[in-house]
């Protein structure tokens, strides 16, 4: 067969193959569906508000809170140490920018559970195992931490410790959110800088 015809045949066959190959730059899930569903439904994929309060009080630098709400909502009130990535932006952009540090636990939160649940499935589907969500979001935080009250005559040591943690976390939250916007931004940046210095990171 002529070389020309062979070459043409090869090009046609390659074209058919290319028609089916996913050569778009867009991201695809790398995990199997059953495995992913099992992972995200597991209780270990989420943190309670009390656990987050504990991390906050200890100024744990191995966690990163990610606020998925709009920038307006985030500017009004947010969690100490949180970075704001509105959910639409989180989906559209490459999550590698935010989720690439394997030693850090990235914890999504929103007003409730819906957007953080979507984000968790999306991130874990893309292979980012170090992602979690805050159960109940800002609503649960307000109800459990900010509005924490002690009632009754007696308190056990454990209840006292819990109450103290909630109270301290609530104070940190209120302290941050009562700052003017410009100071709030500087406060958050300085916290991140301090955390990096403690970790021995470079700036």
């Amino acid at each position, binding site marked *: 067969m002529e070389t020309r015809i062979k070459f043409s045949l090869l090009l046609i066959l390659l074209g058919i193959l290319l028609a089916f190959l996913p050569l778009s730059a867009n991201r695809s899930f790398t*995990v199997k569906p059953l495995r992913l*569903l*099992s992972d995200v439904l597991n209780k270990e994929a989420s943190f309670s508000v009390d656990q987050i309060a504990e991390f906050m009080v200890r100024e744990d630098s191995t966690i990163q809170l990610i606020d998925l709400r709009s920038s307006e909502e985030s500017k009004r009130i947010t969690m100490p140490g949180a970075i704001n990535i509105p959910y*639409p932006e989180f989906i559209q952009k490459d999550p590698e920018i935010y989720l690439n540090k394997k030693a850090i636990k990235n914890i999504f939160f929103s007003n409730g559970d*819906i*957007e953080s*649940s*979507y984000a968790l*499935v*999306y991130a874990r589907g893309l292979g980012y195992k170090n992602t979690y969500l805050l159960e109940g979001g800002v609503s649960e935080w307000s109800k459990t931490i900010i509005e924490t009250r002690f009632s009754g005559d007696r308190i056990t040591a454990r209840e006292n410790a819990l109450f103290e943690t909630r109270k301290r976390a609530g104070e940190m939250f209120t302290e941050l959110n009562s700052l003017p916007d410009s100071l709030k931004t500087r406060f958050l940046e300085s916290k991140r800088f301090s955390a990096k210095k403690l970790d021995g990171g470079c700036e």
Partner: protein
Amino acid sequence: MKFIKQYWLVILIFSTVTLFVLLRTFNQNNFRYDAVKWAEPSVHGSNILTEDQIESIEGEKLIIALGGEDTVSKPVQDDVLKLDPESVLEKGNLDILRRNKGPVILYSDKSSISAKVWMVLSEMGLKNIYIILPQENHLIQ
């Protein structure tokens, strides 16, 4: 014949690769390419329905109550399918979802469960899947 004899190795490799690509592309039990595209309804909120919107949708509605007694507290009617969230991806259940001619509506007392299941199903290429939020739901009574 001579062509095949000369290029049998290339043809073999090419056929094998093509077969794998076709299997991957048309496998309904795997995620689709382009995760952003399949997550799009969650960005716009078009996958969340109110009760009024559900009432006005044409076609056979299939309501799925996800979870056990801790997540579906209201008694479930006969025309509502009750499923354990982890069993949604079993072949039989997936076939029911795919065969349904109308919308499939996911419900759970915990909106995180319905949101997670929705995202997984959407990324597998299932369309016409929606969520109803607990406060909106009067369909399960």
